[in-house]
């Protein structure tokens, strides 16, 4: 499936939209969450061998391929329980931890251990990146799948922290990330 993408910068847009509700949002313990877990699954065809796509994303300590990420700092490389802190344009950070890594299958899974809902309106977020040969055998398919709860942990969320807002933000992020990576790999940079 080829994804299309709007022109806005996703995390930037999320920052502005959610910023308005930040003061009124209830920041419960990080474990608390809404009643309905959401899922987003996006994929993109890249005109390059799967190994090349894997080489671009397969280092957990380098997420420079995702547009709003300006810095990746972390520990323990690609080991299970490796951690990283992403710094985004504007200075916000996201802390993440690796919990599955399979280089042979070209897939890994990680979860967000700390993020402000002003930055990404989700809680209990986990996601998986997987590279497979494309159906025609000529290129690669990169899939990004996420599972998460909305930013508001209690009943009756404000619209900015609703299920819909969470899905929209993650979907936009994935589409932007996949599109950027495709461009980067296909242009040979």
């Amino acid at each position, binding site marked *: 499936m080829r994804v299309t993408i709007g022109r806005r910068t996703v995390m930037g847009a999320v920052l502005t939209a959610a910023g308005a509700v930040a003061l009124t949002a209830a920041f419960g*313990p990080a*474990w*608390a969450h809404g*009643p*309905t*877990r*959401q*899922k987003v699954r996006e994929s993109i065809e890249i005109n390059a061998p799967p190994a090349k796509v894997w080489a671009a994303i397969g280092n957990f300590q380098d997420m420079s391929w995702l547009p709003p990420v300006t810095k990746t700092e972390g520990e323990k490389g690609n080991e299970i329980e490796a951690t990283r802190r992403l710094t985004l344009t504007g200075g916000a950070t996201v802390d993440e931890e690796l*919990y*599955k890594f399979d280089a042979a299958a070209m897939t890994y*899974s990680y*979860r967000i251990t700390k993020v402000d809902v002003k930055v990404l309106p989700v809680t209990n977020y*986990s996601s998986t990146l997987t590279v497979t040969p494309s159906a025609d055998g000529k290129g690669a398919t990169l899939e990004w*799948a996420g*599972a998460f709860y909305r930013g508001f942990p*209690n*009943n009756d969320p404000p619209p900015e922290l609703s299920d819909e807002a969470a899905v929209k933000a993650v979907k936009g992020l994935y589409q932007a990330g996949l599109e950027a990576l495709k461009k980067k790999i296909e242009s040979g940079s």
Partner: protein
Amino acid sequence: MRARILAALAASLCAASIGSASAEEAFVTNQLSDDLMVVDLATSRSVATIPIGGKPAGVAVSADGRFAYVTSPDAKAVTVVDAATRQVSGRIEVGGGPLGIAVTPDGKTLYVADWYAAAVRVIDTASRSVTASIAVGASPSGLAVTPDGRLLLSADRDDDSVSVVDTATRERRATIKVGTRPFGVTIDAEGKRAYTANVGSNDVSVIDIAASQEIGRVPVGMRPYAVALTQGRGFVTDQYGGTVSVFDLATLKPVKRINVGDYPEGINATADGKRVIVACWESNTLSIIDATELKVIGEVKTGDGPRAFGAFLRRTE
């Protein structure tokens, strides 16, 4: 050639034994497609899809098989489904965030956990109305009633404990400390032990109900959701692990991890004890495990986001 014939024979015997298993159905809440689907476990086919709304999550099928009760946290309601006719026969407004649900063995009382309110609502199934509220710990999630109907256990997730409630007085008579963030709770057929899946500490707490204390802890996969019991073993869904962890109920030692679909959640053993049915939230499937061989023997497509949190199997004969 001979090997091939034997293999075919073995396959047909296997199919026959699946076909002759006691007639049973799975009532699966598909949270993201907002419905309840009924799967005939003899044929592994979906036989009905009932629109529910309100993001259905919890389910409790009455012991007599007449009703399936479904919680919808977004609608703040419990939907009553006539299990045989597959029709919605009522809707009970409960308020709050109804999630976990259990029905007493006599079918007269429903308990519904309010995820946001540290309370369990009591519903009289005859009048279909809320008649009382029981104070428990924070974020009650899984509920279970002992086979004699005398005790209700509530896994109070954000208090890292289980409440033991006397169903006659409707008062909490004990609080049992368990692992971190207990979600599902399951009571054995004898009513002696209970098992909680601890999402935060990646283990299962084993509770002696009479003594009101935790007597053991079993390590399982990542982010366990719920526990099923059969053939002397516990079967635990590991959401992030994508596995079912199996452990021995006598020794509490891990036995095996079985790969199932992604984000396995609701899990129940069939009445004959031969199979374990697992709802896989991410892959939109039911994985069917042979409880003796400890392997997946079948898969059934579901709607979007199956959770099946509770007692979701119904005997049809």
